[in-house]
């Protein structure tokens, strides 16, 4: 069973439909036990970094992710669900003007893209590590992005890169922890193939 963490962020139904399209049982849930024990946990996320972190903490998402990673149980963060895995977000919010702490699985910040037109919205290329498991068979494909902030420093794991204004991390595969800045659930056939590749690792 795949759990999609419901913490008030993200187009959860879109994610549910795409993951369920592969034929697996997919539940959108905020139940802590279900999230910890599922075969795979998907952490979606849209909107601002700080509001996602707040919602995540209220739903005990930080503890759920920590527990799963300590037991090597796969977690996939999508969009802001990827960003909150970094050390901090430099996206201004009402309550915090400069920087908000993230879960710090990777020790680098998430900062604004240097492009004249933001958000980075639409289909773009991903340069993945040739040994990538998640991008297997997807080397020339494009994926759908919607974001203005991204992580730009190498984290040392298996990585994929995309350029819009700046070159940034479009995906990371780091043991049980995987993440995409793009939306695989909205990336057509390539996105569904990416999801199947992730499911095959569970």
């Amino acid at each position, binding site marked *: 069973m795949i759990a999609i963490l419901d913490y008030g962020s993200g187009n959860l*139904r879109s994610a549910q*439909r795409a993951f369920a399209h592969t034929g697996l049982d997919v539940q959108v849930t905020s139940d802590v036990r279900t999230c910890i024990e599922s075969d795979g946990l998907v952490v979606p996320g849209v909107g601002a970094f700080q509001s996602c972190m707040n919602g995540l903490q209220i739903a005990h998402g930080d503890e759920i992710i920590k527990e799963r990673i300590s037991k090597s149980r796969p977690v996939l963060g999508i969009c802001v669900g990827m960003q909150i895995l970094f050390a901090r977000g430099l996206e201004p919010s009402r309550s915090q003007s400069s920087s908000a702490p993230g879960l710090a699985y990777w020790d680098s910040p998430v900062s604004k893209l240097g492009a004249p*037109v933001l958000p980075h*919205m639409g*289909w773009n290329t991903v340069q993945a590590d040739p040994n990538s498991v998640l991008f297997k068979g997807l080397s020339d494909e494009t994926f759908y992005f919607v*974001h203005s902030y991204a992580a730009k420093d190498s984290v040392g794991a298996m990585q994929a890169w995309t*350029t819009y204004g700046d070159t940034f991390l479009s995906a990371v595969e780091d043991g049980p922890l995987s993440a995409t800045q793009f939306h695989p659930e*909205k990336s*057509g056939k390539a*996105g569904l193939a990416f999801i199947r590749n992730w499911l095959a690792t569970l």
Partner: protein
Amino acid sequence: MTLRVRIIPCLDVTDGRVVKGINFKNLVDAGDPVEMAGLYDFEGADEITFLDISASSSGRETTLEIVRKTAEQVFIPLTVGGGIRSVEDVDRLLRAGADKISINTAAIARPELIAEIADKFGSQVLVLSVDARRASTKSGFEVTTHGGREGTMLDALEWVESACDLGVGEILLNSMDADGTRAGYDIGMISAVRKVASVPLIASGGAGALSDFAGALDAGADALLAASVFHFGVHRIGDVKRYLAKEGYSIREESNQ
């Protein structure tokens, strides 16, 4: 490699059917929305837009059901617009499977609605639809409401600028003069809006010849929306993409063709 140009077929839906007219009048039936969305996805559309032009609440319910059915099988972004007046309306559509929503009249009546939606769901869900025509406002472009039937004397460029400040994530610029005429996008309007818009710009209204699509991109559009040329088979989405690729624009390859 760069961000791809997006080709977006627009489905104007009323009471469960896709319709299309000229300058928002003389509507004729163009097909079943769920089938058409699936076909356009198969042909390589980069997004799908549903514009709900139903007058009744039962028509709105029907559209919600269409969004639900389409989202079951189409895994590219879906934008839904028409009749959205509140944060609750947005929530209902996102839960049905929409990825973005577009607002127009309600935002003109109450601009704070933009900030309310952006605060709750993020700017990336929010497309501001601007139905503009040439008129004697400051910039020469006026915002209209009710499908172009009513003028506002609100200057289109000033409106776009303030909407960007309030937190819209994208601008859908519809030329009311060009809509449905297939005489070409309003190039002057696109380049004027491009200068003031800090967010992605979708050009809409007037697509006819293949060269029209390239013209709108040269004027600064990031994405191209069209309805009648696709619904009535003047061009397939693949034709537009092949043409643009040949002209040197970066498009997403449609793997089905």
